[in-house]
């Protein structure tokens, strides 16, 4: 029988070992399942984990794919730290993209890139408004935010489909469900490196990530707001005695995470698509949940976690093309990874003891 004995102190070693062991276990179990279902495990392993690094433009595509994951993941970090379970980032991403798209399409001739400040801000508002629904229901009526935020994902997916096929459809799109293309001022350009040219799809949206990581690190570790979030999550009773207003923290983290998901939506559409279409997100909002946990609810960790998960996503695309493996398979790895990461969290606080006694 295994029993868990509480440690006197949180184990520092485990904080480093746990994510590494989790990744090793995940690959092992992933391969086991692949072999069991009749796929070549070595070929799969190569396609999913190695092929994304095989060319320089592919590496830059990893960064492009990681960009929305990191932005959303950072927002979710704030929620999860304070025990607020926003799992509707996918919907907030869509509504942010949609509201910003509406503004962008309303000014068809704008050329100055300063306009991006307005569209990104609008995206933040769009996502935050969508997250405000579970926030207000949770704080005023004690409605479960998990279910409400998730139901709103389905609503958002249907709503953007309606808008793109209806009111915002480009009459010149030959019946395709597409809006007009964005004006120059609302597009995020690819980065042109002097002497090298473009590197894959790498775009200036990545600058937002470069700014976001240090800002969120300072916010979480050095400000009163961050302190309140940490206390509320790890010691709710202490937060209560200290007089922290739980409801206002809940609302704040939901608005921030919704807003960041919305910004991710704007950047994704403005940089990679350039117009609205029924599918603007490819599960980024859900994947970012894993990114937040894999990054151990820490901005720097989330940066690396985003890059790692983006690699697996791109690898899965490659595996689909070359081996016919459906790309939802990434979920398999994400799920197992999450299980082991969470187990690692337990092992930080408890040590294992083997005993003969049955209880």
């Amino acid at each position, binding site marked *: 029988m*295994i*029993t*868990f*004995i*509480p440690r006197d102190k949180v184990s520092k070693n485990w904080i480093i070992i746990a994510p590494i062991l989790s990744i090793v276990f995940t690959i092992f179990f992933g391969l086991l*399942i692949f072999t069991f*279902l009749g796929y070549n495990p070595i070929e799969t392993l190569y396609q999913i984990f190695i092929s994304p690094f095989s060319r320089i433009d592919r590496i830059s595509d990893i960064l492009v794919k990681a960009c929305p994951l990191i932005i959303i993941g950072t927002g979710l970090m704030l929620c999860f730290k304070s025990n607020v*379970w926003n*799992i509707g980032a996918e919907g907030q991403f869509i509504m942010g993209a949609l509201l910003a798209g509406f503004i962008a399409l309303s000014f068809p001739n704008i050329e100055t890139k300063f306009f991006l400040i307005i569209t990104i801000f609008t995206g933040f508002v769009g996502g935050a408004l969508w997250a405000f*629904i579970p926030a207000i*229901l949770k704080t005023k*009526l*004690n*409605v*479960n935010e*998990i*279910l*409400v935020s*998730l*139901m*709103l994902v*389905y*609503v958002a997916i*249907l*709503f953007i*489909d*309606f808008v793109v*096929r*209806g009111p915002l459809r480009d009459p010149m799109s030959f019946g395709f469900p597409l809006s007009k293309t964005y004006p120059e001022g609302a597009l995020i350009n690819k980065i042109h490196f002097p002497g090298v040219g473009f590197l894959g799809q790498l775009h200036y949206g990545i600058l937002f990530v470069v700014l976001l990581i240090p800002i969120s690190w300072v916010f979480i570790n050095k400000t009163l707001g961050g302190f309140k979030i940490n206390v509320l999550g790890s010691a709710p009773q202490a937060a209560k005695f200290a007089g922290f207003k739980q409801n206002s923290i809940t609302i704040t983290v939901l608005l921030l995470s919704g807003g960041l998901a919305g910004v991710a939506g704007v950047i994704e559409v403005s940089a990679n698509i350039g117009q609205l279409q029924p599918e603007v997100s490819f599960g980024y909002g*859900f994947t970012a*949940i*894993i990114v937040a*946990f894999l990054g151990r609810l820490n901005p720097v960790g989330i940066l690396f976690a985003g890059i790692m998960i983006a690699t697996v996503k791109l690898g899965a695309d490659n595996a689909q093309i070359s081996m*016919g*493996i*459906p790309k*939802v*398979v*990434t*979920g*398999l*790895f*994400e*799920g*197992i990874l*999450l*299980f082991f990461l*969470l*187990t690692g*969290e*337990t092992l930080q606080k*408890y040590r294992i003891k083997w005993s003969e006694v049955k*209880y």
Partner: protein
Amino acid sequence: MEALILTIIATSIPLLLAATGELITEKSGVLNLGVEGMMLSGAVGAFAAVLWLENPYYGIVAGALCGALMASIFSIFTINFMTNQVATGLGLTIFAIGLTGLAGAPLIGKTIPSLPKIEIFLLSDIPLIGSILFKQDFVAYLSIAIIIFISFFLKYSKSGIILRAVGDDHQSAHSVGYPVKKIRWYATCFGGVCAGIGGAYIPLALTPHWAEEMTAGRGWIALALVVFASWIPWRIIVGALIFGGITIAQLVGQARGWPIPSQLLSMMPYLATIIALTVISGRLSKNHNVVPSSLGKPFFGSQ
């Protein structure tokens, strides 16, 4: 009219089963958010089994086993390794979407036979009521039997009272000598079996094809139904029929060309879920006795 009622009942059965299973799981103090994943696994397992063994009844068994397997994974991590239940449940659903997508890839484009209807002697000849209540398939009867069984189980049986005790105060239940972890394992696996059969019912009776993520959020609606029912079994029937009715109403609306865009009609079940949760939760927060007090809290054993 009769056909309409039959469709509503058929649509509500997966919700009914999954919600009933989750109710027992939650009564033991475990919040399993992986219902959607367990249903998906049940659906793919059932589809493969029927394709292979050519008998729809094996689909029910396969669905139950796959659901139980998923629930066991959840139990190992949350009950034995004491991981966060919310995150593990999400992980289970994400894992199952990947696993079923992979396992189901060779099944796309194939068709399976549906569950046959069982007519109950004489009763099925009663006009209207007969064909609605006594000319259903095995799973429909089974789900009603399960609801009746667990209503009595929770209220009158000793095991049911122990289960509730574990969910309400695991520390006290442990002190009195009840094996908290074992009871939670059983309750979670029961939830898995029910969700698995509920998922299996989708290819066995609703659409005889396999499609990725074919449960389309039903697992999440089932979770909402448990809250809607305030953890009282028979109320799940009412809730499931309401949601079945709304789902069918929007389909009928689309078919008859109501002057509302189809996407806005398709939102109705999800919006209805939010509204129902809001109405019920407002009332629940005034009455704290209903929610199992240890729900979602891991049990660390005695120290």
